[in-house]
């Protein structure tokens, strides 16, 4: 049965390519192809999960076997065509013209096709996931949430808005800067501003999301409110990527790399955005409501406040190397901003802002998040981008670590060190290493997907929004030993 379903899925995909090349009837091909793929994925998922959830090492596709490499290769080639050689995809893009015309009234672009395939994957693999975790309400509601946000906010609304307000740029409410690194680029801001009230409202909303909405939500629920409930990258990882989640690297080395890399990308995103905004603002009010100087003062103030908060107030939460990195970056940014205020140079960071923007968009936007992040799902697991690269995850992660109520609670002494939780952690957190010591888990990278709790055979783990204090419970002996209640002697030692 599994073979039949996977063949059906492949036929669906192939008919898209063949239909495109032969320019067959667009609507028919789309319907046939998407029906085949839906049936293939859902049917395969049913066969795979009707008795058991995982068993991933019994399957070549999910254990870096031959098929996994083939799939990885296909995905990478697809991303490279999409980003850099989209003319080769032209026959397929034309298939989507009628659909696009219905939605936005425009002919399809490569991004429209990508959006369709992306949303489609989240929906069908979401159904598979819903079946796999039947009986687990947390997983059900969370998955319906990512499916909803992807379909309505990322796919449907922007297309409709484009139809109703042709002059507003494509805007996905939930795609927040710095994940949405182009949000404050000149052409977008110009369009937002020139399209009147709604445009300015949206622009304000996007600023509010960064400084007000997301910190409040993260305080209450942890970074999961975004990363595993709302975000589109997370949505794909949780649904289509679920088969590959266990491939994440659990080593301490990978953890060290993650800590550095993700914050370097964040620094890059900040510098790039500051440079870009600086480059189009004027030194008077002729074009925008704020001047260059105002913007720089604002950045300087935020920079100073953050440095004070991180290095003074939350000092004990941060490791030494983290504090040094923050200090270095703060001085660098502050220095350039002061230089900007004094000298008003053409280029704030000496380089052309366009060079910075282009290299960010190429290296981070296309290569990292697309080719490596998604193309390599079958090899490195589903959250490579979210873990090592996403600047939004870096910010939310800091908030989670510094002031959120969120934590994963360990249930007393019940852990049997079986390793299921660590294996299925897509973020590469060694959950077991905490659970088997009776410690709660408070890690900035945790996206709160809840799978550790779902796969634990002994009911040890629970995601909780408790009080922010006391979340680092660290008993000496584990619960179940009378001496763990009376730790005086141990404490003295």
């Amino acid at each position: 049965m599994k073979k039949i379903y996977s063949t059906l899925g492949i036929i669906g995909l192939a008919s898209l390519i063949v239909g495109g090349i032969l320019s067959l009837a667009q609507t028919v091909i789309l319907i046939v192809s998407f029906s085949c793929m839906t049936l293939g994925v859902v049917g395969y998922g049913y066969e795979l999960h009707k008795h058991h959830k995982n068993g991933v090492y019994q399957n070549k596709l999910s254990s870096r076997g031959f098929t996994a490499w083939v799939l990885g290769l296909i995905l990478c080639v697809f991303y490279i065509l999409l980003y850099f050689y989209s003319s080769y995809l032209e026959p397929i893009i034309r298939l989507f013209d009628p659909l696009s015309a219905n939605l936005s009234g425009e002919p399809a672009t490569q991004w429209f096709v990508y959006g369709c395939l992306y949303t489609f994957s989240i929906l069908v693999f979401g159904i598979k996931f819903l079946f796999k975790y039947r009986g687990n309400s947390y997983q059900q509601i969370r998955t319906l949430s990512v499916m909803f946000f992807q379909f309505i906010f990322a796919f449907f609304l922007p297309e409709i808005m484009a139809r109703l307000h042709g002059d507003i740029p494509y805007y996905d409410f939930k795609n927040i800067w710095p994940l949405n690194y182009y949000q404050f680029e000149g052409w977008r801001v110009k369009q937002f501003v020139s399209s009147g009230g709604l445009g300015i409202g949206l622009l304000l909303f996007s600023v509010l999301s960064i400084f007000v909405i997301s910190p409040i939500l993260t305080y209450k629920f942890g970074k999961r409110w975004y990363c595993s409930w709302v975000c589109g990258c997370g949505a794909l990882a949780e649904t289509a990527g679920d088969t590959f989640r266990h491939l994440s690297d659990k080593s301490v080395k990978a953890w060290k790399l993650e800590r550095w890399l993700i914050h370097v990308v964040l620094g890059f995103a900040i510098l790039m955005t500051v440079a870009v905004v600086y480059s189009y603002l004027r030194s008077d009010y002729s074009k925008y409501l704020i001047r260059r100087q105002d913007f720089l003062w604002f950045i300087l103030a935020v920079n100073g406040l953050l440095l004070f908060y991180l290095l003074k107030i939350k000092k004990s939460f941060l490791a030494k190397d983290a504090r040094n990195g923050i200090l270095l970056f703060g001085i660098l940014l502050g220095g350039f901003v002061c230089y900007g205020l004094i000298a008003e140079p053409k280029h704030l960071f000496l380089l052309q802002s366009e060079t910075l923007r282009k290299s960010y968009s190429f290296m981070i936007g296309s290569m990292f998040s697309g080719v490596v992040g998604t193309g390599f799902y079958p090899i490195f697991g589903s959250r490579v981008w979210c873990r090592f690269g996403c600047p939004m995850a870096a910010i939310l992660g800091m908030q989670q670590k510094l002031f959120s109520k969120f934590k994963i609670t360990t249930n007393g002494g019940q852990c049997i060190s079986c390793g299921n939780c660590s294996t299925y952690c897509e973020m590469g957190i060694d959950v077991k290493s905490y659970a088997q010591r009776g410690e709660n888990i408070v890690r900035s990278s945790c996206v709160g997907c809840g799978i550790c709790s779902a796969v634990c055979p002994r009911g040890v783990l629970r995601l909780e929004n408790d009080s922010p204090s006391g979340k680092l419970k660290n008993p000496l002996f584990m619960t179940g030993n009378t001496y763990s209640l009376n730790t005086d002697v141990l404490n003295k030692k």
Partner: protein
Amino acid sequence: MKKLVIIGNGIAGTTLARWVRKLSDFEIEMVSDESPLFYSRTALMYIFMGDVKLQDTYGYPEVFFEKNNIKLIHARAEHIDTTQKTILLKKEGTSFETSYDYLVIATGSKPTFYNWPNQNAKGVQGFYHLDDLQELEENAKHAKNAVLVGGGLIGIELAEMLQRRAINTYFLIREKWYWNGVLPDCDAQLLTSYIAEECPGLALETSLDKIEVNTQNEVIGVTTTTGESIACDLVGIATGVHPNIDWLKETSIETDKGVLINAHFETNIKDVFAIGDCAQHKMPPKDRRNVEAVWYTGRIMGETLARHLCLEPSVYAPGPWFNSAKFFELEYQTYGLVSSDRMKKENEIHFQCVLDSTNHKWITIALDQNNNTFLGINSFGIRLRHEVFEQWLIEKKTSDFIVNNMTKALFDPEFFKDYSQDIQKAYKRYKNEKNI
């Protein structure tokens, strides 16, 4: 500097080593003939089913032991000279010795076979060590039909494992219901009907009589105690485990079923201790068995002995009993003592509350009918908080209190149904019926 040698690197031995390192500067050597690194025995089934790999079940990576200066010796202990304080070790045919100031025996268990005819045939096996896992991999490759003997926790794991490989499994259980030597009948009945759904080959009140073999000494079938013959190419024996201490019989260390110890884990020989599955308490704590073969007690013994050796004299003092298991997809947790019908005392009564019959969720609370004291709880399909129940048991709360405060003890993930109201209502009805 004292030198501590631990034989066995399971949960008991490894916990001991970890805590002794934290609390002292002893020189530590840990000997094992199985896996060079401590792995989780309880996860053997997940390796077989392809859920995790062996490396995923290691408690600590190799560098942990290096960093903490715990020397791992991969060899078999063959003999102990308690007067010279030396141990004879053997690895791949070569023998060598190591000496100790303190010696701890933590050699675990091994499967029990009841001398069935042909029990050494190819295709007949127990399930405890890594070797058994490998053997099962081999045996399962070509097997079409399997017979499992023994209705305990290892038996049910084997049933799940074999069914997953699409091997037709007959599961022979001597008792009237699955695990009713441990569970009260009301729980055992519900559990048995769930297991029968998952494993249609379940046969109750049936045991193994004879194993049939062919001329190559390969198993071809069994005859059961009910006289039925079943053709099969794999027989899994899960009729219990016993301490793995045969080699100690020739030493001067006193043994019975297990290594005999007092409350400080001391054997009859000075500076020789035993912990974990292989230990037999001469005077077990109240309501405890003298040999406890579970993960958690091994860990608690390891913690306590470290305290005893490094800080101050300490006795084995586990908190209220707790345990957990998973039967196919059904999770089970227990806190306190819910006795089986056979073992229960006169005043112990059981309140069972089925929360969701289609999805198999229920709890059973044991209480003292004279003074309403809460004795323990079994939960199936819902998760409960260990710390909360430990505290309630220590404070000897009444079952009225437990039922009224149930919300505090629920540990199911967010958005799961809160059953505390249902429990309260059912409990009221139960009390009215029973007139208590």
